[in-house]
């Protein structure tokens, strides 16, 4: 316990992990506030995990319930896998933010509200019959009412700004207060403000004043009696940065192009939540990166095929609705056996669905959503940082096997952030493949490498290899148009065998937890963190449980069937109604149990634990 110069008694409490949720109007800058807190925590050395959750509307009516934007960050002194099931602290900038987020706050949790925003008009927009700050409905929580708007306006007095401009900086007041409460330095954010608003000194000054005012308010008010310290996490030695999945995907492809010694082409059409990748790659022109914003999703896919035909490392990115439009051209890519990667940052569907919310319901679309027998490898990153390595891996498979590859990210893994140990460029794998050159005898555009079954990549400009390809079935070897029954059967089987054979060239499925026993929790994609944390909790509780996570959805790792047999029960949690579950049952004749949730949100750890325990109890597994 210390006493401040103002005579306030304070203590500093040590915590292992804290989860904060910033919530406000979509115009309140909550994503920026959350991102700034994330950077500060990451640079400090915490392990972090974030969950940005924003509405599809750019500016829904101010103060309305659909307009609420949230950003949850969990930062920790130990290894964490998720942004936290529930916040410890909720920062609510208006009544709508309080109303939509309060149900997630456990009893006893802290709420810091911008008291200025609790006006009759805002209360009515949030459908509050009475003011929750005065009607005792919040008595289960620790409520801190801070007149953020008023205090912030006072701190900015004298600056040449409109009152609206002043109001826009109040998120930084809240951020400053949180920095004080969690004993964080303001320096990273101050540096960022200077870089961002360097050319607009008044705006820079305003944001810095807002930040400092929030910090100073914490220091001088008698409202808070405790500040909190979350020490550094024990991460492996190395240089780290904070990274989102979409950033890691873009960087992974940039690295893949270098590792493949080819120019990168990215043809794409803007679509939430995949647009970041296009924007980031567009900034890498000095690497010779060619980005193409196509007129539509189909053109994006067609241009990618054209660039692949020309010898580039060709990529496209989209989300579910865009993938549906690309399907016919994806079939052409399968038929012409050209290498490319198709990124799908999945979002909730069907149709336009919930454009900014997570779902994993495009798995069957990429596996089976094309006409004809159209096999395509499918990979899915489990965490934001893993997007980097898997982008390179997807490129490697595409090039080595001359095939389009689907890369299934999602809104949670794409927008979420975590610390990333920056790899050494010298450690990048060599994934280069040669172009075909003229040899002896007749050129066979559909001749196959005996090991990989891939066909030669004969790019235009190569003398003596002039040939014609296309969507019509081709004669095995010679590649001329061919309609014969036996040839079509043979080519169909060859295309399937080529993709199935990739199983020999990918890592086996690993398990975490018991090697054999009662329960295997089998997941894929962004559910990794919740499943891993649930498994850790259950193992600590002495349960016979393991977690296996598939990065390769087609083909499955060669040992998948064997792994499944080592456990009495297999539980498959997914953010869909049972797509991997369906494929696993069909492929391995295993009586796996599905657990699907489609609420536009990632799994909570507790949900997985509860379902796993329910299942174990149902199977008569006692403690």
């Amino acid at each position, binding site marked *: 316990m210390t006493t401040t110069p103002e005579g306030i008694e304070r203590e500093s409490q040590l915590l292992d992990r804290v989860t904060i949720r910033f919530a406000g109007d979509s115009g309140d800058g909550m994503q920026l506030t959350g991102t700034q807190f994330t950077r500060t925590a990451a640079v400090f050395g915490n392990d972090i995990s974030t969950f940005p959750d924003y509405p599809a509307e750019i500016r829904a009516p101010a103060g309305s319930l659909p307009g609420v934007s949230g950003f949850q960050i969990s930062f920790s002194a130990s290894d964490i896998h998720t942004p936290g099931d529930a916040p410890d602290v909720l920062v609510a900038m208006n009544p709508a933010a309080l109303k939509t987020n309060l149900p997630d706050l456990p009893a006893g949790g802290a709420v810091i509200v911008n008291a200025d925003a609790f006006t009759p008009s805002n209360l009515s927009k949030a459908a509050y019959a009475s003011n929750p700050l005065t009607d005792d409905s919040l008595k289960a929580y620790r409520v801190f009412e801070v007149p953020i708007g008023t205090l912030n306006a006072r701190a900015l007095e004298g600056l040449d700004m409109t009152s609206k401009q002043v109001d826009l900086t109040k998120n930084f007041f809240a951020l400053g207060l949180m920095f004080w409460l969690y004993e964080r330095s303001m320096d990273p954010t101050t540096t960022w403000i200077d870089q961002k608003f360097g050319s607009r000194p008044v705006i820079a000054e305003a944001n810095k004043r807002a930040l400092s005012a929030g910090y100073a308010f914490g220091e001088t008010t008698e409202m808070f009696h405790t500040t909190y310290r979350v020490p550094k996490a024990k991460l492996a030695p190395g240089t780290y940065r904070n990274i989102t999945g979409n950033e890691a995907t873009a960087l992974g492809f940039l*690295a893949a192009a270098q590792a493949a010694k080819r120019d990168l082409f990215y043809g794409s059409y803007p679509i939430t939540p995949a647009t970041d990748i296009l924007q980031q790659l567009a900034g890498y022109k000095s690497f010779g990166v060619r980005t193409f914003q196509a007129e539509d999703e189909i053109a994006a896919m*067609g*241009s990618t095929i054209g660039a692949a035909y020309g010898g580039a490392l060709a990529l496209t990115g989209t989300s579910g609705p865009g993938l549906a439009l690309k399907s016919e*051209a994806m079939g*052409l890519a399968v038929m012409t056996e050209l290498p490319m990667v198709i990124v799908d940052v999945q979002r909730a569907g069907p149709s336009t669905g919930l454009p900014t919310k997570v779902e994993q319901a495009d798995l069957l679309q990429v596996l089976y959503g094309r006409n004809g027998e159209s096999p395509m490898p499918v990979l899915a990153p489990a965490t934001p940082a893993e997007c980097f390595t898997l982008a390179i891996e997807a490129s490697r498979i595409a090039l080595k096997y001359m095939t389009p590859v689907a890369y299934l990210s999602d809104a949670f893994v794409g927008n979420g952030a975590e610390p990333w140990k920056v790899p050494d460029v010298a450690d990048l794998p060599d994934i280069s493949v040669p172009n075909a050159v003229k040899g002896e005898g007749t050129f066979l555009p559909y001749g196959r490498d005996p090991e990989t079954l891939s066909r030669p990549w004969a790019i235009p400009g190569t003398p003596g290899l002039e040939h014609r*390809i296309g969507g019509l079935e081709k004669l095995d070897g010679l590649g001329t148009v061919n309609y014969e029954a036996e040839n079509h059967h043979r080519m169909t089987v060859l295309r399937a065998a080529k993709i199935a054979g990739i199983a020999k060239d990918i890592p086996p499925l690993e398990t975490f937890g018991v090697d054999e026993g009662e329960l295997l929790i089998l997941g894929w994609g962004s559910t990794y963190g919740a499943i891993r944390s649930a498994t850790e909790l259950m193992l600590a509780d002495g349960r016979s449980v393991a977690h296996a996570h598939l990065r390769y959805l087609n083909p499955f790792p060669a040992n998948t069937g064997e792994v499944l047999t080592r456990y009495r029960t297999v539980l498959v949690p997914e953010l869909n109604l049972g797509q991997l579950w369906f494929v696993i049952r069909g492929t391995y004749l295993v009586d796996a149990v599905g657990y699907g949730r489609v609420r536009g949100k990632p799994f909570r750890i507790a949900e997985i634990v509860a379902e796993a325990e329910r299942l174990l109890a149902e199977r008569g597994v006692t403690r």
Partner: protein
Amino acid sequence: MTEMTAGPAPVDGGLIKLTRKDFVADAEVRWCPGCGDYSILAQTQKVMPDFGVPRENIVFISGIGCSGRLPYYMNTYGFHSIHGRAPTLATGLKTARPDLMVWVITGDGDALSIGGNHFLHSMRRNVDFTMIMHNNRIYGLTKGQTSPTSEFGKRTKSTPMGSVDRPMMPLTLALAAESTFVARTVDTHTEHLARTLEAAGRHRGASFIEVLQNCNIFNDGAWRDFTERDVRDDRMLLLEHGKPLIYGKDRDKGIRLNGLHPEVVTIGEDGVTEADLLVHDQHAEDPYLALILSRMFWPEYPVPVGIFRQVDRPTHSDLVDAQIEAAIAKSGPGDLRKALMAGETWTVE
């Protein structure tokens, strides 16, 4: 401005001269006997050596429809893609490989119906390829349904009481989409067809050629009313840069502008002289004259053939490459290590 800008550089200073036969693939041509596509193929193969571009640097990309088979018959690189999407493949290919000479083969349904969006956008981007649109005003490969250029009221298998859709004007569309080379020719007018192909192939930028083509099976005589030998002089107008718009067997008919409307006049009648006629300017920076010409059609007007518009604009890949060069000039070649380390980093000992 030069009449024709240079295409890709010839090998060995142009010493290797290929012939038409070098461009004939060994695939058996499978169009219906009498199809206008034979003529388009033959003239394409004929002009190809004139560009001095090595065979391996030439790519033909097609969509779906009878025209889509053409790449199989060209002994170059070829890609028979899917319906309407050939311009998208060509755009990706040219962006990645500006060194290649790319031809897009399409039809009226492929380019204007299912691929209408790609047609417009590849033109406005000035992607450096030549699009040859075989226009037979019918869906031939599916055996005779109405197409986007079919006449209003046309009876086809899918429109037994007549089409209720008005036809598109392909050249007007190409001009509206900012195409930098717009031309029309006829399958049976082989010499003009070859000349037009040659001019389009030498143009840098998005070139669009509408070839009026006959489908003798499902739409025989598609353009007969004005293309037949005995009537064509009086019903067609050959556009020549810098020359007045004169036509007719006796070279006595012409086009003059009356307000915003073109008007057919006879030289020597009502005091009309050659000086009153519109003079063709295919290099005009603004597209107004070309747009007026693109709307003229039989029977109200003679049907213009030739180059409606040809202007110089930077191509799509010129601009893409210039940005890459500018980025490198500004900050040096990309350094992956720096890109990975962008933003704030921290070190754990």
